């Protein structure tokens, strides 16, 4: 299909594409955060001294939007510690010392799914969240009474370096297919469309094989243009439907699901094994031997990088996720999270802050924004406190993809300003609603 939004060319740097993923031995302590998803932190159900197996529930979901956490190793719980998360707050985390046996919990059996309700319950129990990086609990997307016309499978993987989704599409196509079959059957999904960027011809071929086996399934080869994998961009590119301000994909009849999310669901539907491990791309200028690693969730970032030969030079920045939208981590003791799809370590030169100069009104930010937002206008309105104008400018359409900032010749912190503007607009709207 030919729907296309603006975007930018970013370097691909997919160094790890095509290489087999290596499984990391889980012999070091794991730290399972209770906030590996959007929503309320889950609640620990184990205590120091408890013995757990692979797949044992260690934290149950809280009320409302939440997701349970399962142990990724067998061993003993050494305690519940506190962990700093990216929004600056602290949440409990379960620390487990592995026994090296990797004994699987004997209660693990495939879920019984015979209706939409039991399917949603099963997805909730799987602990699966949006594995593309956002971490939105997956069950919540499907728990809708609205008609689902499209299941849009996100295999765009538009961030530089990252190839973990490519690995999933190539090596776990059967799991993806299994999950799609179950979802289509119980949720009455009308069409399935798999969006993959054209720089992954092998993955496209593999997905086309899936699609050819029947079902109302198709593959959409997308231009390699960042941010192709952004939800609004992907839905527009694959279906031509526009998700307006404050709307969700389901409002235009779509549910978007990352391909690795689906593969993990597939495994769970088949075997009952919840989300306990993750394929992660480890790459960047400070990593000695970049590779795709299948790591237990909760392994420390330092241990995973050590598994890849350690650092080739002093790291200046280490990121959860890709270099366009990734989150910097404060230290190497941070654990791998459910939604971690990559660990990118940049050397000190690449991580050095860039000198900011005056805006020269070049208009690059506006030309590059897939949502048609003018960053300079947003900043002007924000600085003047003109919140109604922020709304008109579509400030809250911003997904913080960084297309504006990537090419800004003045190195202005545009994403930061967008974040400030969005939160100011949100506060203002809440106040207006009360008044």
């Amino acid at each position: 299909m030919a729907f296309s939004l603006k975007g930018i060319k970013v370097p691909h740097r997919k160094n790890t594409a095509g290489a087999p993923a290596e499984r990391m031995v889980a012999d070091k302590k794991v730290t399972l955060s209770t906030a590996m998803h959007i929503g309320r932190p889950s609640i620990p159900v184990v205590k120091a001294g408890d013995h757990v197996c692979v797949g044992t529930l260690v934290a149950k979901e809280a009320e409302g939007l939440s997701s349970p956490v399962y142990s990724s190793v067998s061993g003993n719980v050494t305690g519940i510690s506190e962990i700093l998360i990216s929004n600056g707050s602290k949440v409990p985390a379960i620390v487990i010392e592995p026994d090296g046996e990797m004994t699987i919990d004997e209660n693990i059996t495939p879920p019984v799914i015979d209706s939409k309700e039991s399917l949603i319950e099963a997805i909730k129990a799987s602990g699966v969240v949006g594995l593309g990086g956002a971490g939105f609990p997956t069950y919540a997307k499907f728990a809708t009474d609205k008609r689902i016309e499209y299941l849009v499978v996100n295999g765009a993987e538009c961030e530089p370096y990252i190839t973990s989704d490519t690995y999933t599409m190539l090596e776990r196509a059967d799991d993806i297919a299994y999950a799609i079959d179950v979802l289509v059957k119980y949720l009455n999904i009308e069409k399935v469309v798999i969006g993959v960027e054209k720089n992954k011809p092998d993955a496209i071929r593999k997905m086309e094989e899936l699609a050819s086996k029947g079902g109302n399934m198709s593959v959409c080869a997308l231009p390699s243009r960042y941010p192709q994998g952004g939800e609004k961009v992907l839905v527009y590119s694959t279906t031509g439907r526009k998700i307006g301000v404050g709307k969700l994909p389901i409002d235009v009849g779509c549910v978007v699901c990352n391909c690795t999310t689906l593969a993990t669901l597939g495994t769970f539907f088949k075997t009952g094994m919840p989300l306990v491990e993750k394929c992660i791309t480890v790459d960047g200028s400070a990593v000695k031997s970049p590779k795709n690693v299948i790591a237990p969730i909760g392994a420390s970032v330092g241990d995973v990088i050590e598994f890849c030969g350690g650092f080739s030079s002093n790291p200046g920045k280490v990121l959860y996720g890709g270099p366009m939208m990734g989150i910097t981590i404060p230290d190497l003791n941070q654990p791998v999270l459910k939604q971690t799809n990559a660990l990118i370590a940049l050397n000190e030169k690449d991580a050095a802050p860039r000198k900011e100069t005056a805006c020269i009104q070049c208009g690059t930010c506006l030309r590059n924004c897939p949502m048609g937002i003018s960053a300079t206008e947003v900043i002007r309105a924000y600085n003047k406190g003109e919140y109604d104008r922020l709304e008109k400018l579509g400030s809250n359409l911003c997904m913080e993809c960084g297309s504006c900032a990537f090419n800004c010749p003045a190195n202005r912190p545009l994403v930061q300003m967008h974040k400030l503007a969005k939160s100011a607009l949100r506060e203002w709207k809440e106040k207006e609603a009360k008044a």
Partner: protein
Amino acid sequence: MENKLHISVSPHIHGKKTTMGIMLDVIIALLPTTIAGIIIFGLRSLLVIGVCLATSVLSELLFNIITKRKQTISDLSSVVTGLILALNLPANVPVWQAVIGSAFAIIVVKCLFGGLGKNVVNPALTARVFMLVAFSSLAQVSFPVDATAGATPLVSIAEGNVPDLMDLFLGKTGGSIGETCSLALLIGGIYLLIRKVITWQIPVAFIGTVFVFSFFVQDFNATTALASVLSGGLLLGAFFMATDYVTRPVTKLGQDIYGIILGLLTGIFRIYGPSAEGVSYAIIISNLLVPIIEKYTMPKPFGKGGERR
């Protein structure tokens, strides 16, 4: 000691463009016409260029020191302003006037408005117009060293004597240092297009409108129309001054409209105005229209009725 990690907002990689790089590209693109000007008008033009460059950079340096602002001369924008002003002056302009003009451009038109990116009108051009009004010496343009004094091409056209197109193309006519050699200006313009510093919208709309206007108003003669495109600093203005990021609209549609307005104003000023000149005035007046052009051509955000394919 454990290695400290940087914490920052994404993105963590960046494209190659910088403000300094863009300014450097503009300077490189101006070199052909600068060299052509020196060859055509002699070493006196080199003196004018040197004076304008030195005064511009020094003015910004001193302004920043006196007002205790962050030093900004490394962005090279004052070099661009000084060079463009020099290229818009005749080679025989008195040195003290060139000094005043350059200082006016930097201090009054740029720095007092808040520095780079905040000025409303193009600094070099505004300084030139200031000098046109203040100093009568600017009315007497220079002529090539190997030619006898005569009329400028635009005056000739107005009098009905269309100059030789090849002379216009190679710059062997009277005029400002950097405005006569069309060949050199085209090379510079194409360089800017290839380097994607500028887009084709403004130059094409501007030059095209001048051509069409001249064709219909001046005897339906393609040669006359072409001569008017190649003279009076139109190419210098269209490629290097009307495209100035700070003072042109950011939207593509806005740039089309802006270019057409520029062409119409230039045509009107040249043909119906008191002097044969028009480009400088047209650009300054159009600069003032930019906010309103931008207001009505801003694309609608996604999902609000305007997604761009």
